């Protein structure tokens, strides 16, 4: 209970001092959001959990090299993003993902017809659409909306410019907006 009120830095210092069990607090703090990001990037729940476990172990093993120069979340999400890319590249799914990168986002629209929106629960459907974003877009959207990271922090994680992060973010948002407009979902959502 008390541990949950501690900051990331305090927990890391405690783990570094030998209180290994305190690391569980960090795991609980980040597991859901990181898992969501990985699930959106890898499009597979099983892979997402496996990669997430790997990420937490990597972070634990390299905790001594974490010098508090950036936030733990930035450092950890860089591990998560890079491990996910490695997994994608190993699975050769990266080729497919590259084909559907930023400029081809609109392919997603054709996957859904008007009936889907009438029959299915909107929130579920939108979740499905978000889950189908290309890996980089999924990562940006997750970090921006779920983790509430700034575009500067995201650019630090992804090692791309802030302008590029904004482009990815705007295009992901525009895609969803277009779907809302096309399907006349505005009244239902508002």
């Amino acid at each position, binding site marked *: 209970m008390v541990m949950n009120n501690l900051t990331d830095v305090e927990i890391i210092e405690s783990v570094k001092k030998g209180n*290994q*069990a305190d690391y569980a607090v960090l*795991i609980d703090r980040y597991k859901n959001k990181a*898992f969501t990001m990985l699930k959106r990037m890898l499009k597979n729940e099983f892979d997402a959990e496996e990669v997430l*476990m790997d990420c937490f*172990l990597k972070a634990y093993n390299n905790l001594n090299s974490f010098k508090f120069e950036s936030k733990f979340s930035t450092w950890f999400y860089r591990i998560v993003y890079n491990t996910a890319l490695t997994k994608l590249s190993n699975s050769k799914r990266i080729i497919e993902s590259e084909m559907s990168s930023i400029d081809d986002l609109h392919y997603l629209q054709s996957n859904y017809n008007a009936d889907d929106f009438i029959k299915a629960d909107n929130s579920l459907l939108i979740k499905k659409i978000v889950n189908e974003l290309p890996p980089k877009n999924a990562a940006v959207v997750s970090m921006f909306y779920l983790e509430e990271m700034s575009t500067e922090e995201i650019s630090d994680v992804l090692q791309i410019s802030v302008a590029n992060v904004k482009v990815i973010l705007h295009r992901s948002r525009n895609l*969803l907006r277009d779907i*809302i407009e096309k399907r006349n979902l*505005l009244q239902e959502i*508002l």
Partner: protein
Amino acid sequence: MNNINDEILNKYLDEELNREEMNRVRIAIETSPQLKKKYEALLSANTILKNVESDSPSADFTKKVMGKIEIKKASANQQKYFLFTVLSLLGLIVCGITGYVFYEVIASIQTSEPSGLVSNYSNTIGDYLSAFFEKKNLSIFGSVLSFIMLISGYFLYDYQKHSKKNFGH
């Protein structure tokens, strides 16, 4: 209205425009129903993305990760003890050889008049070691030593492989 594109609308939403531009876009949205509809759709897309709930890994995820960390820590300790044992054994052998070499050197200095209790003891040990390091015994000893080292090396390799496997899955 025409010069207000998607990028500007997104920047307006994120409040990244200066005051003057913000006002210009606000007025344009208020006066153009088409732009208003577009902006409202963008606003709801933003709201939806904000409200999408996060998923959770399996219920015992934290326990699993902590378990793997525990295994890794235990295997690292065991590895330390194993290395310590092997190195101690080798150290003892080296000490034995060094002792023998010293004995030979001292014995060669005191060849003329060996007397007293110490000399008797050193003679006994010397005889024993001389017998032990005879050509035949020396080759057996060398073979045993090589065998021990090979076995130790194999177990060390196997142990490391096993630990890695445990840690990885």
